[in-house]
């Protein structure tokens, strides 16, 4: 807004056109050879193959649960990314959507005895429902005000909603015989993550995705272009809530028991925010990597202690210290997070030259305006 105001209209248009033209022609000059394309495709293919192989090649059963947890955090990261990265509104109540999904699925699938997929759907739907309630608040307040409302809502869910009636004692969340082993179940989780990943790609390419990002950049300008701000804001909340609710349902059935002691608390909400910001707002591969780091940090440190000589044993209490330090370093050095650091690789995979400078030309979505209500 201010940048626009500082430049005269011609200057602004001129610089924009010129810049885009120069960049476009430089890109157009470069075409990877056949071998180049093969190399570019082999990298993501190898990553996917490795992820798919992980639950089978890991030596112990319980380690498949680590894969599941990382994938569940990945689902949450995609959910956060829709709200924080694309819409530019900070949510500190995501643990509530997550927890509601976990409880709903456990109640429907185990307490009432419906099949598991129906429970998962119920989890996703109830996540969407609570998110829409907060979405209506978000129509009135933005930015930091909304963050405070979501924060208060998260606390309400933790100490009150999840303590009502029979929920207070916890709800068992069983799995059918075929999915009883952690290894089998982790493929269900990975499948859900893949589904959300594809949905996310489709969203960004659609009119709705562009509309949501336009609202982030400037609500009034978006409105003047005929974008229905109310509708697309609510849509972003629904999508984010659905993703988070599904992730919660997956989490509940992974643990086998959902109770308020499962730490649906402020620290979890902050972890969700930290992993998304460290991952890089608006970059879906980046946020997934952030999620994996935060979900497996203590396991990684443990493995390093086991395999690297002289690496100290890390007290679990220190793990948040490392997470917070990672966050601060990321924000100061690379505001675009991991998404910014992997920029050269991402451009190369998409058919560009490998150029380390891409790291510094990053224009990610910082997201967020101080909202006066």
């Amino acid at each position: 807004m201010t940048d626009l105001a500082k430049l005269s209209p011609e200057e602004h248009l001129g610089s924009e056109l010129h810049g885009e033209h120069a960049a476009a022609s430089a890109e157009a000059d470069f075409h990877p050879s056949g071998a180049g394309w093969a190399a570019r495709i082999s990298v993501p293919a190898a990553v996917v193959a490795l992820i798919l192989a992980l639950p089978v090649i890991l030596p112990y059963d319980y380690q498949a649960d680590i894969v599941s947890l990382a994938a569940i955090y990945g689902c949450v990261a995609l959910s956060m990314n829709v709200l924080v990265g694309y819409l530019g509104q900070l949510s500190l109540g995501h643990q509530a959507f997550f927890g509601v999904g976990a409880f709903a699925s456990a109640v429907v699938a185990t307490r009432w005895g419906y099949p598991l997929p129906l429970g998962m759907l119920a989890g996703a739907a109830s996540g969407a429902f609570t998110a829409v309630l907060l979405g209506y608040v978000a129509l009135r307040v933005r930015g930091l005000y909304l963050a405070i409302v979501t924060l208060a809502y998260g606390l309400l869910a933790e100490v009150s909603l999840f303590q009502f009636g029979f929920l207070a004692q916890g709800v068992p969340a069983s799995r059918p015989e075929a999915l009883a082993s952690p290894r089998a179940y982790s493929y269900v989780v990975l499948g859900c993550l893949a589904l959300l990943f594809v949905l996310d790609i489709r969203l960004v390419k659609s009119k709705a995705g562009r509309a949501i990002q336009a609202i982030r950049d400037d609500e009034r300008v978006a409105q003047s272009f005929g974008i229905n701000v109310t509708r697309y804001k609510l849509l972003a909340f629904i999508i984010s809530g659905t993703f988070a609710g599904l992730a919660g349902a997956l989490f509940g059935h992974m643990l086998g028991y959902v109770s308020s002691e499962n730490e649906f608390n402020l620290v979890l909400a902050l972890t969700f925010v930290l992993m998304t910001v460290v991952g890089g707002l608006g970059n879906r591969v980046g946020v997934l990597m952030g999620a994996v780091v935060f979900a497996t940090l203590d396991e990684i440190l443990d493995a390093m202690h086991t395999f690297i000589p002289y690496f100290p044993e890390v007290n679990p209490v220190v793990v948040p210290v490392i997470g917070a330090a990672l966050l601060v370093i990321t924000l100061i050095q690379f505001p675009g997070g991991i998404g910014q650091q992997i920029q050269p690789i991402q451009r190369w995979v998409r058919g560009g030259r490998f150029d380390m400078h891409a790291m510094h030309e990053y224009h990610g979505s910082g997201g967020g305006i101080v909202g006066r209500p």
Partner: protein
Amino acid sequence: MADFFESVFRALMVGMVTGTIYGLIGLGIVLIYKAQRIINFAQAEVATFAAFMLYLFHARVGAPYVVAMLIAIVLAVALSVGIERIVIRPLRDAPDVTVFVATAGVALFLIAMTFLIGGANILIVDPLFGEIETRIAEQPLLGLLSPQRLMVLAVLIAFSLSLAWFFAKKPLGRAILAMSAEPFAVRLAGISADRMSTFVWGLTGLLAGVAGVVFIPTSALTPGYFTANALIPALTSIVVGGLTSLPGALVGGLLIGFLSELTAQFTPATVPSPNIIAAFVILLLTLLFRPKGLLAREA
């Protein structure tokens, strides 16, 4: 009928005690918000840090109470200035949400550090006036009005009014406000943004430090105590009071404290945490009918 009045009186007393700490934590957050448009998520944790230092120097090192209090407050100021220097200043041009998340990271870091040093124990900090405290506590209802609690209230009122005066009348206070409105113009006028920033964060550290050491004897200290118990109600009460209003933090804190205790007194026991529900409803009603807060004016 007598029962009714006793319940209301009890809610008033308990609400005042909890409300003052919401107000004190909120006041520090308003201060930073007024000056820099940043919500400082680590404010409550700086208070916990000060309380922890008081315990460390009084109970473990054996320093006299008042000396330990002063050391704790000075360390809290130093911590706050350090946060500004290491985390906030490099992020000057970053989006607000990024800065907010960074302060949340600082809070998590500090909580983990206290876990590391003090363990997960519950620590008891002695009150300042030991003997009077125990004699008053024997009274049935007035026992809630201990000197320590009155001191917390006095500190809150003194801080919020003197800070409001400072920002309205003193040149330094006005320079800080101008900095939040037009940073570039203020720098042209020869005022150093860095020094203003250090000053404000030092001031907010002082607030958090005093809040921590004065309040903690009325409760028990655990890692992350203020973040877990006071931060979210404090944020709620400053939105209710008006994010930029220093007396608003006082009014909002006491209002939230009193109304949520009142709800708790008259709600059946089957409803879990009615005070949190009440605070959330008050927050929503405020945003619905008076979104800028009860006492808000510009800057």
